[in-house]
């Protein structure tokens, strides 16, 4: 119940803010928005002891019970971490944004979107029902889209928003398909019920497709390789948004999903390999690309990509533990997951602080370009402090929390390389090597932040205004985060006991007593391989940073049009022009072509169906004999019909058409249908007169100049259609499976009081059709009248199209 309130509260406040904004012009609307994350944070923080004692907190609201879709919240250790991050960092970001955004911006939109996002994100992490989770998942995509394009007058913002929307929603939809597959296998949408059925579904044929599709959703959201390309472009958003969405919360939704579903899919070899390798590639590629960035926010974006890859690979390595029976050694592998969760929290703290720091620099100096920055240390000492703490923590230096999680990461990759499972041993050595190389690059770009932006030569470019230290309120939020960074280094085990332990229990529900799952974190753990690797990172990193100018050339090895971004652009514009071409190739605007498609479709669907089903069967035994004069009349009609195609003047065509009409009348007579013959005659005459009426207004008959091939294809189509219709009607003639109902109508005099069967059918038995046909005539008459009477005045607007 409380959790439902926590999810609904941001939505409610978003609604209130959008309503009352006009009335509160004096107070910054952000203060109102600030209350929400603080309240949510307090609600969650009060539940920590209950969760830590191992009692998940669940509540269900019925939504669509008939479809098994219920608004079920489930609060356990894993959700708690994310809930605290979302509300905690959310409060700090709102506080920061109050001073960051000027009141000239459309603030009610900003806070409305931000609160929408917050509520959606809380919904994602607290939902137990997969469908509800998906709904909130898409809501985060939409609100993120709105936030990225907050300055929608800028082209880059719109482009970035579109890109992130396309990529994350594509992943989201594939995830939905994966969820539905899970539902098909287990007949349940509840994550926890599905976890109980693991043994039954792991052999199911949909298991692997569901896994891959869900991973696709998680990877696109969490900016994993090769879907990371939207994240750097999303940096067009206001900095508080970047700090909140694109470092601390939304991009971790994918990691949340992977961790949440690990009990289901973990233990599968494919899961381990996909998650771990994609994570490691992302880790390396992000850190490698971050070094070459010149925009601080882009640098931070790539570093986020890289760190997310780190967390993802750790979650993947942790999934090995499911495949092993529990023994003392298993704990070693679960520690990878522990490291992932620990680094998840650490990353949110220092990356949030770094983004806010960049925002302050941007705010005060007016640029974020590294090439134009420099020597800010003496001007902005407090901001510099934030930058140093954040960067060193990101680089994994003591005494900051990044050091601890990096040591755990190295420990995890070193353990995994020795594992004899999933054929890891053959390539096991690659794990620590890639991890180590990526760490070196991480170290280099952290140094770039510190040295290029804050130390070194003073500002060379003239800046618009005198640069000075940021106002104190702007610094409150990053400082709180920095305090977190340091205190997490000194007291990691408090966090481990109350927050991480229950999360580990919820990731490994069937495994091991909880004490063994949570290792003690030691800042100093003796001289071992991990610490040596860290020292090597510092040494090699320093040397490489010193020689940065010498080897920057390697980034020019691959041409820019080979990048993933170029691929994305090419695919988007390519598919656009391709579909344009395809559409233009068949939507020619010529009616002749459309008729061609319709008839060929008719030929292929009906003809082929008749052919394959063997419906063509003819017999002539029931046919009546044909008289002499009938042959002659048929010959006349054939001659007239064929001559119509070749005549040169319209009026001849109309006269021949009249001949056809007379012929039809005569056949009606022969087949004893006097009413039809009468009507046919009248209609024939009226149409002939109408044709003649129109001719006065028509230009001279000019036959279209058609090429020979068109003529041939036209005649082939028309001959085939004609033949097909003839064959079908002949086949239908022999269809004699049911008794005819016409016997019933023969008794028309007794039933309806009329001797004329046709007329009694029209007016009595089936009078409804007649009524509607009268309506048709009425509408046609009205249509003709309006067409003639109400034509657009000369010079008036053309109403067509």
């Amino acid at each position, binding site marked *: 119940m409380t959790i439902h309130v926590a999810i609904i509260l941001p939505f409610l406040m978003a609604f209130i803010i959008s309503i009352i904004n006009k009335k509160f012009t004096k107070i910054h609307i952000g203060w109102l928005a600030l209350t929400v994350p603080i309240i949510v944070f307090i609600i969650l923080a009060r539940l920590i002891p209950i969760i830590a004692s191992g009692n998940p907190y669940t509540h269900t609201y019925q939504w669509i019970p008939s479809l098994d879709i219920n608004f079920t919240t489930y609060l356990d250790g894993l959700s708690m971490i994310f809930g605290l991050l979302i509300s905690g960092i959310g409060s700090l970001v709102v506080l920061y944004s109050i001073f960051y955004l000027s009141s000239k911006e459309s603030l009610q939109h900003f806070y409305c979107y931000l609160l929408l996002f917050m509520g959606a994100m809380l919904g994602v992490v607290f939902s137990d029902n997969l469908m509800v989770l998906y709904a909130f998942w898409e809501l985060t995509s939409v609100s993120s889209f709105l936030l990225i394009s907050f300055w929608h007058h800028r082209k880059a913002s719109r482009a970035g928003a579109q890109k992130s929307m396309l990529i994350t929603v594509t992943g989201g939809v594939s995830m939905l398909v994966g969820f539905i597959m899970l539902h098909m296998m287990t007949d349940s949408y509840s994550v926890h019920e599905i976890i109980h059925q693991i043994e039954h579904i792991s052999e199911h044929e949909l298991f692997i497709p569901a896994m891959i599709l869900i991973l696709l959703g998680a990877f696109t959201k969490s900016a994993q390789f090769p879907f990371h390309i939207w994240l750097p472009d999303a940096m067009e958003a206001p900095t508080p948004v970047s700090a909140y969405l694109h470092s601390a919360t939304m991009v971790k939704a994918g990691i949340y999903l992977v961790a949440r579903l690990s009990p289901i899919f973990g233990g599968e070899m494919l899961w381990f390999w996909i998650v771990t390798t994609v994570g490691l590639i992302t880790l390396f590629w992000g850190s490698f690309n971050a070094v070459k960035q010149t925009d601080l926010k882009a640098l931070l974006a790539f570093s986020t990509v890289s760190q997310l890859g780190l967390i993802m690979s750790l979650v993947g390595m942790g999934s090995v533990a499911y495949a092993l029976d529990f023994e003392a050694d298993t704990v070693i592998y679960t520690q990878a997951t522990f490291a992932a969760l620990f680094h998840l929290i650490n990353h949110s703290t220092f990356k949030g602080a770094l983004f806010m720091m960049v925002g302050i620099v941007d705010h005060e100096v007016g640029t974020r370009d590294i090439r134009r920055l420099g020597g800010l240390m003496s001007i902005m000492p407090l901001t510099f402090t934030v930058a140093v703490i954040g960067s060193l923590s990101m680089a994994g230096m003591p005494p900051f929390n990044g050091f601890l999680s990096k040591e755990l990461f190295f420990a995890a990759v070193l353990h995994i390389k020795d594992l004899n499972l999933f054929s890891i041993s053959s390539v096991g050595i690659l794990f620590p090597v890639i991890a180590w190389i990526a760490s070196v690059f991480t170290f280099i770009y952290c140094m770039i932040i510190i040295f290029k932006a804050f130390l070194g030569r003073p500002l060379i470019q003239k800046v618009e205004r005198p640069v000075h230290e940021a106002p104190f309120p702007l610094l409150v939020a990053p400082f709180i985060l920095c305090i977190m960074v340091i205190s997490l280094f000194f007291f990691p085990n408090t966090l481990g006991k109350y927050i991480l332990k229950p999360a580990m229990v919820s990731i490994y529900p069937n495994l091991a007593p909880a004490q063994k799952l949570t290792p003690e974190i030691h800042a100093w753990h003796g001289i071992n391989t991990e610490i040596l690797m860290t020292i090597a990172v510092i040494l090699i990193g320093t040397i490489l940073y010193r020689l940065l100018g010498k080897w920057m050339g390697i980034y020019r090895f691959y041409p820019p049009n080979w990048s993933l971004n170029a691929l994305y652009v090419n695919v988007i514009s390519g598919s656009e022009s391709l579909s344009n071409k395809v559409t233009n190739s068949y939507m020619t605007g010529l009616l002749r072509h459309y008729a061609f498609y319709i008839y060929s479709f008719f030929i292929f669907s009906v003809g082929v169906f008749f052919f394959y089903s063997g419906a063509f069967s003819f017999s002539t035994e029931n046919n009546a004999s044909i008289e*002499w004069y009938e042959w002659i009349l048929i010959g006349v009609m054939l001659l007239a019909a064929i001559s119509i195609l070749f005549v040169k003047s319209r009026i001849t065509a109309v006269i021949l058409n009249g001949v056809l009409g007379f012929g039809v009348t005569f056949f009606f*007579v022969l087949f004893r249908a006097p009413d039809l013959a009468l009507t046919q005659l009248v209609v024939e005459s009226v149409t002939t007169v109408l044709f003649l*009426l129109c001719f006065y207004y028509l230009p001279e008959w000019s036959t279209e100049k058609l090429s020979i091939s068109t003529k041939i294809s036209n005649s082939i189509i028309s001959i085939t259609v004609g033949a097909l219709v003839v064959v079908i009607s002949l086949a239908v003639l022999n269809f004699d499976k049911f008794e005819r109902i016409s016997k019933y109508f023969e008794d028309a005099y007794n039933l309806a009081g009329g001797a004329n069967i046709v007329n009694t059918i029209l007016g009595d038995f089936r009078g409804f059709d007649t009524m509607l046909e009268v309506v048709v005539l009425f509408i046609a008459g009205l249509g003709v009248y309006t067409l003639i009477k109400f034509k657009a005045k000369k010079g008036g607007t053309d109403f067509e199209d």
Partner: protein
Amino acid sequence: MTEKILILSLVLFSITIIVALFRIIRGPSMPDRVVALDMIGVTLLSMIAIVSILLKTKAFLEVILILGILSFIGTIAFSKYLERGKIIERKSDS
């Protein structure tokens, strides 16, 4: 015997229609074609009469009457079109 004569006459009428159709297709002038169409109408009228004798029914007598009227109207319409270029004239035109 009567029946055979009737069918023979139907065949002869059909041949008449073929001849008329030849005139319609070949032309050469438009009035030729209109007259031929009128002729086809009248021939059909006779054929329908014979057919109703053959079929021993009175149901087609209305058809004969209507055909007579309509082939007349049709011929008039064609003639007027050929002469004036239009069939129904507005008041201001006259």
